[in-house]
């Protein structure tokens, strides 16, 4: 037996197995990581049941009545749990989301499992998602409109839902008036102010010109006034009703319906209801604006900002990357110089992204942007237009960051085009440009697309440089809107990656924000994996194609 083992060690098999183990560990880590994000991110939207129970923080003390979702649990040693009065070497504790931040101050707390008594899941337990102070957990007792009770007990819940729906419609209208209509007027007003200032700078601030401007201004003001009266009406409608409720420990509260996003009774919902609710929440997550310092609501502006930035970057990086690659491979004389350039380009792909951010901030934002402001936007100085981080500079910085990727991929594609094809084309009398344009480049198209996809995937996931050149935690307006010139390259924008960093680490209420961060991370991971898999697929099919071309 011993001899056998010794022999087995001599053959080195255990080491081979250890090597295999390294692969297993790596694979488990990748899959585990993605699974972790997926489970946590997707679980967030599921309406979990609400428990109501008596809680004894220490044995033999008076109980408090608590209510909330149990979000997490862990088992820790006595000493880590702070040596509670309950027995046992290890202590099990639950993280409970009890909401009601406006009443109790805390919406998450760790409670000891042993202290939970008389747990129940009553059907009439209500969760109210609010626009401020987070969720409310309690029991609905009545509804008021203009100070009058409008509840009749048997249809209380239905009336509540109808009122919420009606109020949300009003809310949408208010948002439309405030953001779109009044926003447009404010934008035009600002343009007028700048126009006046630029006339002043050019020394053409004549009474005639001024009169035209003032006339326009008055017109806008009139429009503005009419909108504000409309808004006032909407607001009085919006604030008219409220609901009454009691919390688990019997506190009565009245909350205006204007604060309510939605209300539901998870304990009374069946699986189908919950699934529908889940889809609704997921849709809200994708399409809605964030609420409550980004910890609730959706991430639409971040998705929009990421996509827009990546598109602008792609528009800039593709032609330049391709031209550089074509020059390097087809036109430049091959020699030590091109070899040096190739090494440099390869190395630039390995330069830390934050260095590009520093370069973008110094060169693009302060130097180029500052000069552009001096030349073209003197009217808004000292407030910078392009001399401050914004969409254009972020896209440009990422274009510089990713251009080596496109160059390398395109060059690889060009090098795979068989010599015979080029020579055939030239022999038939085509010029070099025609050969390039008609035969070589079409054959490399998929290589370029591969490069582009890889560049896009890299750009979508970068955060460090963007922190310096244009991303903000909350952009007041999207960079693409209804006001001419529609695409506002000077605006700041939101970004998925930065959203993760910001909400996860700068948020005042990390516990509340955590599930949303997982969901955002999942979205980003899925996006990037899809992009990469596509690129890999294209590259593989490309290789097959050329192998066939070379052999035939």
């Amino acid at each position, binding site marked *: 037996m011993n001899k056998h083992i010794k022999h087995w060690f001599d053959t080195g098999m255990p080491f081979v197995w250890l090597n295999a183990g*390294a692969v297993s560990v790596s694979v488990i880590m990748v899959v585990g990581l993605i699974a972790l994000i997926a489970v946590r991110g997707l679980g967030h939207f599921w309406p979990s049941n609400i428990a109501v129970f008596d809680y004894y923080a220490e044995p033999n003390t008076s109980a408090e009545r608590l209510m909330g979702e149990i979000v997490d649990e862990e088992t820790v040693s006595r000493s880590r749990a702070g040596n509670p009065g309950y027995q046992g070497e290890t202590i099990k504790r639950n993280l409970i989301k009890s909401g009601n931040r406006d009443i109790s101050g805390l919406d998450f707390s760790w409670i000891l499992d042993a202290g939970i008594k008389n747990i129940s899941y009553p059907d009439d337990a209500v969760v109210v998602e609010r626009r401020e102070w987070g969720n409310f957990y309690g029991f609905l007792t009545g509804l008021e409109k203009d100070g009058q009770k409008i509840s009749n007990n048997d249809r209380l819940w239905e009336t509540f839902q109808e009122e919420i729906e009606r109020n949300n419609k009003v809310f949408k209208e208010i948002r439309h008036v405030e953001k779109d209509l009044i926003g447009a007027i404010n934008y035009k007003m600002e343009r007028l102010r700048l126009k006046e200032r630029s006339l002043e700078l050019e020394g053409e601030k004549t009474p005639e010109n001024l009169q035209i401007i003032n006339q326009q201004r008055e017109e806008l003001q009139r429009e503005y006034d009419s909108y504000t009266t409309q808004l006032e009406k909407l607001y009085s409608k919006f604030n008219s009703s409220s609901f009454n409720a009691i919390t688990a420990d019997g506190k009565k509260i009245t909350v205006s319906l204007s604060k309510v996003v939605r209300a539901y009774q998870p304990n009374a919902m069946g699986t189908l209801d919950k699934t529908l609710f889940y889809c609704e929440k997921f849709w809200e997550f994708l399409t809605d604006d964030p609420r409550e310092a980004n910890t609730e609501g959706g991430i639409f502006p971040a998705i929009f900002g990421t996509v827009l930035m990546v598109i602008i970057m792609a528009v800039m990086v593709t032609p330049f990357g391709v031209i550089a690659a074509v*020059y390097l491979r087809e036109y430049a004389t091959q020699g030590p110089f091109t070899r040096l350039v190739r090494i440099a380009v390869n190395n630039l792909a*390995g330069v830390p992204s934050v*260095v590009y951010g520093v370069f973008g901030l110094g060169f693009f934002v302060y130097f180029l942007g500052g000069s552009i402001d001096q030349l073209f936007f003197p009217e808004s100085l000292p407030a910078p237009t392009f001399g401050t981080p914004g969409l254009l500079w972020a896209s440009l910085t990422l274009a510089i960051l990713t251009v080596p990727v496109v160059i390398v991929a395109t060059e690889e594609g060009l090098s795979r085009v068989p010599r015979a094809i080029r020579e055939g084309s030239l022999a038939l009398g085509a*010029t070099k*440009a*025609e050969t390039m344009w008609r035969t070589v480049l079409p054959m490399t198209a998929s290589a370029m697309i591969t490069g582009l996809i890889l560049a896009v995937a890299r750009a979508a*996931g970068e955060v460090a440089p963007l922190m310096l050149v244009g991303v903000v935690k909350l952009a007041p307006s999207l960079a693409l809107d209804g006001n001419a010139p529609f695409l506002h390259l000077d605006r700041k924008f939101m970004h998925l990656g930065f959203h993760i960093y910001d909400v996860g*680490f700068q948020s005042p209420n990390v516990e509340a924000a955590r599930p949303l961060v997982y969901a955002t991370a999942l979205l980003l991971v899925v996006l*990037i994996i899809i992009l990469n898999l596509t690129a890999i697929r294209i590259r593989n099919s490309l290789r097959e194609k050329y192998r066939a071309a070379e052999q035939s």
Partner: protein
Amino acid sequence: MNTNEAVADSPLLHDFNSQTAKKYRKWRHIKDVATRHLMAFGGVSVIIAIVLIAFYLLYVVIPMFKSAEIESIASYSLPGNANTKSLMYAMEEQREVALRIDEQGKAVFFATVTGEIRKSIDLNIPLDLSITAVAAGDQTEKMIGLGLSDGSVLFFQHNYDVSYPDDVRLITPFISFPFGETPIQLNKAGESIKQLSVQYDGEQATLVAHGSRAQINLVSLIKEESMLSDEIKISREESVIPVDTGDIVELRIDIEQREMYVADKLGNIYFYNISNKTEPRLIQKVRAVEDDITITAVEFLAGGISILVGDTTGQIAQWFPVRDDENNYTLQKIRTFNKQKSSITEIAPEHSRKGFVAIDESGEMGIYHTTAHRTVLLEQIDDHVLNAIVLSPRANAALIENDKAQLQFWHFHNEHPEISWQSIWGKVWYESRDKPEYVWQSSSASSDFEPKFSLTPLAFGTFKAAFYAMMFAIPLAILGAMYTAYFMAPKMRQVVKPTIEIMEALPTVILGFLAGLWLAPFVELHLPGMFIMIFCVPLSIVFAAAVWEFIPDNIKHKVPEGWEAALLIPVVIIAVCFSVLISQPVENLLFGGNLPLWLSQELGITYDQRNSMVVGFAMGFAVIPTIFSISEDAVYSVPKHLTTGSLALGATPWQTMMRVVLLTASPGIFSAIMIGLGRAVGETMIVVMATGNTAIMDMSIFEGFRALSANIAVEMPETEVNSTHYRILFLGALVLFAVTFLFNTIAEVVRQRLRTKYSSL
């Protein structure tokens, strides 16, 4: 139609030399040439654009290391009565207007560029008295005290109103008396004041004066606004401080009015604590210069912590109180600067930086910075003795008087005196610290704060992070690569390789977020499990292999060769779960249920939740795919005839692996490690999110650090453009750029060599 006709009519022959064909050919030629030029232009400019990065970083960094430049603007005879002795000068913020006070008590405000008098005010010194001493307070309140021959002090303020009539700046100077126009009696005996120092902070004023006797009179005035009326009451405290010397040459109190320094003719410095105005205490008496040398100038550095002592040899030294272990302060000589040619006549500190300018009797002027321990400029500006100097508040101009009654106005261009090789990379003894240290502390709320720009702790942090990441990544990635390239079944390889490579594309912000919010608490909770895992996982793998070895062949053969990794997946998962599960019991048994607490109580090791171990895991995870992918390629492309030859000679696969394959592929593996290292050094989001970002220098795996890249990401958005802080962050970026570029170049060169080697085999 016959054939001949057909040939004649052939469009090819017929049209070859026609006008249209020629034109078309020309057009095609033009297009060809145009494309060539366009491509060359475009290609070269893209390449230039990306190379520009390095040069732009350099362009921003270089001004930091330039020495100062000075520019003579004007020279004129003393404004006002040129025959009287000047007592003092002052300049306002915009360096447009300056003030000269002469011995007759005339305050003359004049334009700095021309010397033209803007306003002349008589301070109305009584005819029977003369001015015997003069002192200026701190720059924000601009107080001046004139000591008179009857032991009283005229205490006033010079002020400047700035207005913009017709968009042109107009500065109107005036003089005001916050404590009344009557001189304040300091010396009750009526001796004339020889030395004087004053300070005022808007509420409280302290005046100290030395007369002819061996004592110092201290008076403190506190303005109190009464609640009911607007009346201002002034309360007065005073004391008499005996000194054991009669020859006081300099007397200074600091801006906080808590410390007093007295220098005597023998070269002693007396250090007093005057926090309690009625009971000042002598803390220390030190000999500041050697025998035969006398102190000629004593001045506070901005902030009022250090004093600068100039002497007859032209030497300037910086001193400040240092706290010892018993919490006692003693005055210590911190550093000396290059000697000037001759006796120092005056030292002028900058108002908001830790720099100063000194002039001497030979006509030489020096510009220095204390923190950087740097002589920014040393220049002979005159052939005569320089008497007096005043710096503008922004330290961008100076007025210098020589003994020929000439006043010179200079502009200074001295943007970054605080930077030197020593202050960036070396240990620096900062004010209020007890020893020289490496510190990064770039900003603070107070304006006279001493910025601490040591990149050493940041570079240390970067390499610490890279070190722990590599500790985790190298074994996993390289062992994995060896197996995947050499032993693994091709079918499985097709799945495994892309899976691991996909990791490379994972945004690091996600890894950082998971490390900070999930892994860090997890590791803290299961700390013993983490260490058990390191042993448990490899052991269980070997154990599983042994078990596999002994199970009957007919089962074994059902699994084709090269699928060991798949078999091991459940084994690894079980081993990991086991480690996590027994973590708690082990902790309870050995460490009282709380290992982090036990570490700090029993071993004195601090445990941060976001520590280097967490970063090591997260960043290792980010680096594994890079190293794996490149070294897998290197191993995979080892020519097959080498391995088959080795196997044919009877070597086991493992022996072939170790002696043949690995040896041949080692340059490739080396370059993989270099590229991985480059990535670890520059990684930003993981280190921002998974560490506490405190700039400490400690290799402990349980503590955090602050990396260069994280520092840039955190501080860059808040810096002022072209400030020293901005440029030093650029320097940080340049260092990162250079280091990663170096690693990558080494890797690239090694890889290219390897490629030629393979093709020759």
